[in-house]
């Protein structure tokens, strides 16, 4: 934890993140396009109709394209400044693809990603590289996401070097290490000398080095031991309060998402099934998939656990290369009727206070 002396340091340097941006972007000789329009009321990130198709090629040496896997199909959401949006869903539902498309680490097939007034999908490579200062990502596997040949100090200083923001690398790195609860002397060690939780803190420090406005957290704690998860989650919440960060939190662990998110979006096979505040989604789920998902959360009391009502789904998450027509959940849904196979249910509020993509929405109380 930061000492009192250092504690004053970050507040001075970190709190006024917005006003500092203008001179800093001059360092990069950036044109005006990188400067996000000041719109304090509008959402920081607005994603509309985002689609990502991955081509599937044949196994023959010719590698002929034989079809596409639609990992994300027409997803829209927004995140307000200072807010955390939790993106939940099972493996293969397209959560991580969305995270990478937002950063253009993979190119979206269509749709729009608007970050603070800048349309990211229209930027060229160079403009996008400058834009990366304002949005950073923390990866799932902290061992794989840190270069094993670099010292921790070099890893954390790298973003500063790339964007030519180095003034005093040693102090900057020490400050960042303290910010994430590591000892500044750990800087000259290598990633393999740290525990999983410490490595994830290093990853967070690297992401924070550029003083971004938004962090995309791609399953940041799912590779960690349960006992370590809480520490990293608390750190993330703490950092959000101090630095005014906006989070897109991707995870499959429902309780983790509930703990950290202001709003939650539940994904199924490349589409959003239900979205709303954490309270709405967790206590009044209206989409059958959300209800089934929540019914699978174990209760830590054995007596209650035995009486718990569970909704058992049959089959697997559908094949994204050949998705079911209409509602993608219909193949596993107990409410499915003819209309579900014919029409895709729009994500609209059926009068319960939050949007649901279901033809037969029905609120169920979950304690």
């Amino acid at each position: 934890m930061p000492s009192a002396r250092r504690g004053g340091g970050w507040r001075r340097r970190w709190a006024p993140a917005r006003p500092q941006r203008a001179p800093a972007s001059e360092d990069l000789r950036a044109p005006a396009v990188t400067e996000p329009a000041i719109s304090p009321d509008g959402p920081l990130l607005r994603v509309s109709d985002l689609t990502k198709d991955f081509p599937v090629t044949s196994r023959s040496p010719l590698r002929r394209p034989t079809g596409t896997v639609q990992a994300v199909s027409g997803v829209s959401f927004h995140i307000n400044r200072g807010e955390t949006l939790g993106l939940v869903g099972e493996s293969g539902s397209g959560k991580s693809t969305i995270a990478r498309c937002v950063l253009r680490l993979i190119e979206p097939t269509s749709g729009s990603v608007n970050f603070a007034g800048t349309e990211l999908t229209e930027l060229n490579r160079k403009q996008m590289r400058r834009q990366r200062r304002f949005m950073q990502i923390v990866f799932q596997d902290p061992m794989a996401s840190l270069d094993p040949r670099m010292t921790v100090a070099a890893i954390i200083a790298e973003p500063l070097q790339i964007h030519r923001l180095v003034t005093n690398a040693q102090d900057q790195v020490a400050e960042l290490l303290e910010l994430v609860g590591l000892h500044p002397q750990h800087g000259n060690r290598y990633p393999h000398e740290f525990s999983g939780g410490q490595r994830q803190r290093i990853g967070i420090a690297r992401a924070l080095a550029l003083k971004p406005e938004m962090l995309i957290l791609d399953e940041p704690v799912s590779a960690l031991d349960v006992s370590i998860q809480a520490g990293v989650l608390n750190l993330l919440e703490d950092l959000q309060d101090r630095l005014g960060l906006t989070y897109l939190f991707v995870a499959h662990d429902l309780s983790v998402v509930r703990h950290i998110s202001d709003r939650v979006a539940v994904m199924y096979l490349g589409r959003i099934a239900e979205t709303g505040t954490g309270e709405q989604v967790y206590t009044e789920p209206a989409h059958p998939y959300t209800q089934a998902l929540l019914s699978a959360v174990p209760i830590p009391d054995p007596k209650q656990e035995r009486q718990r009502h569970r909704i058992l789904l049959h089959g697997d998450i559908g094949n994204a290369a050949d998705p079911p027509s209409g509602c993608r959940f219909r193949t596993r849904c107990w409410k499915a009727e003819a209309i579900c196979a014919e029409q895709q249910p729009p994500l609209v509020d059926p009068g319960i206070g939050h949007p649901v993509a279901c033809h037969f929405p029905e609120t169920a109380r979950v304690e």
Partner: protein
Amino acid sequence: MDDRITTALADDVVARSQWRTVAGRFFSHRFAVGALLAASAGYALTFLAEPLTGWSYKDLSSDLSQGPSSRHWFGTDTIGHDMFAQSMRGLQVSIHVSMVVAGIATVLGTVLGAVQGWFRGRVDAGVGLLVDFLLILPLLPVLMVLATRTRAIGGSSLMFVAVVIGLFLWAPLARVVRGEVFSIREKEFIEAAAALGASNTRIIFRHLIPNVMSSVIVYATLTVATAILVETALAFLGFGIQPPEVSLGALVDEGRDAARTRWWLFYLPGAVLISLVLCVNFVGDGLRDAFDPRQRRRR
């Protein structure tokens, strides 16, 4: 264990980098260390030969075709060259040439291989075509033709021969590096660098190449051995380095006819050559073992 004590100790410990771990493993490999010492000693001896024996490789003594003695350690040839001085000069030339060759081939192979693996697509196909072409090229005939054609512009000078051989030996390394980069480029730390806004150049030189260095170093060492043999073969065939400059290959070639009668002219330079190549190969093997991640016995 007392937590405070371990923490206090740990804070003072400077990180043990992977390079140091590798060095530790290499130095516990007795054969490789012995070979490295022997090669270094041999190289030092090439400079001490003249002060020790009093003969330079250019000197012509009046002792013609004499066997090894305390005056001429490796004997003399028909016109009175001291064969020890000649062998040592040849050793020196071979080491210098092979170092330059390995340097050129390693830099070219590493950079081009990494570029292939990173950009893929057309760049990969283009460089790959060149690699394939160089790999199927019969090296010795081509080098011989080059040597005869370029004699006028210094085709027999030491550096020229080294650079030309170097330009032909990078292809196998490029293939190795390309393959490794294909696997490393999919790792998350490369994606992380891209997310930070790192340029292609930065990703290639700061992230990809450092992570393939283990293979590169091993391969570079083995390229040294190849280079020695190629240069020797060229000299043996009468191309490349020309008199009065000597090389081990040229010495073995000249001594070939006398292998039965004046054995020292053939076998002694040959023994020096074989020892050098063996030493380099042992060092290469030691390095490969030291870099092998499966060897966790010793850290």
